[in-house]
C-alpha cells in the first residue's frame, strides 16, 4: 500500500509518498500507528478535523476500513475553484 500526502501535510511530513505494509485495518489504526512513529507525524495528525483522507482516490471518513486498499491519501481541506 502507498501513503500519499499533499499540501502542508506533504511539507510537514517531508515526503509526497511512502510505502506502508503494517497491520492497520482501518484509517484510524493507520493514523495511530503513524503518530507513534515520529513527532512530525504526531503533529500532522494531532487535529483530524483539519485533515481529509481518501482511500483509493475516494474521500472517506477516518473510521473507514483499509481492506485491499492500494493507496491512502492525507491532505488538508481542498481549496480549488
Amino acid at each position: 500500500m502507498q501513503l500519499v500526502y499533499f499540501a502542508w501535510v506533504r511539507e510537514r511530513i517531508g515526503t509526497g509518498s511512502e510505502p506502508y505494509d503494517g497491520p492497520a485495518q482501518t484509517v484510524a489504526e493507520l493514523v495511530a500507528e503513524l503518530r507513534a512513529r515520529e513527532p512530525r507525524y504526531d503533529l500532522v495528525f494531532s487535529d483530524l478535523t483539519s485533515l481529509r483522507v481518501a482511500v483509493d482516490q475516494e474521500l472517506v471518513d477516518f473510521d473507514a476500513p483499509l481492506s485491499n486498499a492500494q493507496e491512502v491519501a492525507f491532505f488538508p481541506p481542498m481549496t480549488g475553484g
Partner: protein
Amino acid sequence: MKILVQTAPFDVGHETNAFTDTHKNVGAVVTFTGIVRDDDCGSLDAMEIEHYPAMTHKAITQHAQSAQDRWNLADVMVIHRYGKLVPGDVIMMVATAARHRTDAFQAAEFLMDYLKSRAPFWKKEWIDGHPRWVEAKQLDEDALARWD
C-alpha cells in the same frame, strides 16, 4: 462531457464558443471563469496550485455526472489548471448547456461549490513575499451544504 486538468493556459472565449457550437437544441449556456485576484490584505505575488493527479480527473467527472443526473443538461465542461499562476491568470472555467436557463445556472453553481471544497486542489499563495496555504472557508462548506 469534457474535463481537463492541465498546467497550460487556455482561451476562455475560444472554449466557450467551441462548447456552445457543438450543441443542437440548447437554449442556455452558462460559464464561470475563476481568475487569480490580488489578496484582500496584502500584495499577491503568485499562487501555486497543487493537485492529486490520480484522483482529480476521476473526482471531477463523478461530480459532473451527478450534476447531469440532477438537472436536465445537454453538456458540462470543466477546465482546471494547476501549477504556478499570477494575478490576472485564469485558474479554471466551468460551462453548462441546457434547454432552460435555470438548469444551466443551478448546475454551474453546484459544480463551482463542489470544485471549491471537494476537488483535490490546494492553493498556496505568496503574499508580500511570504508563502501560506490558503485555508478552506466555512462559507464554501455552507454553499456546498445547500445542495444536500
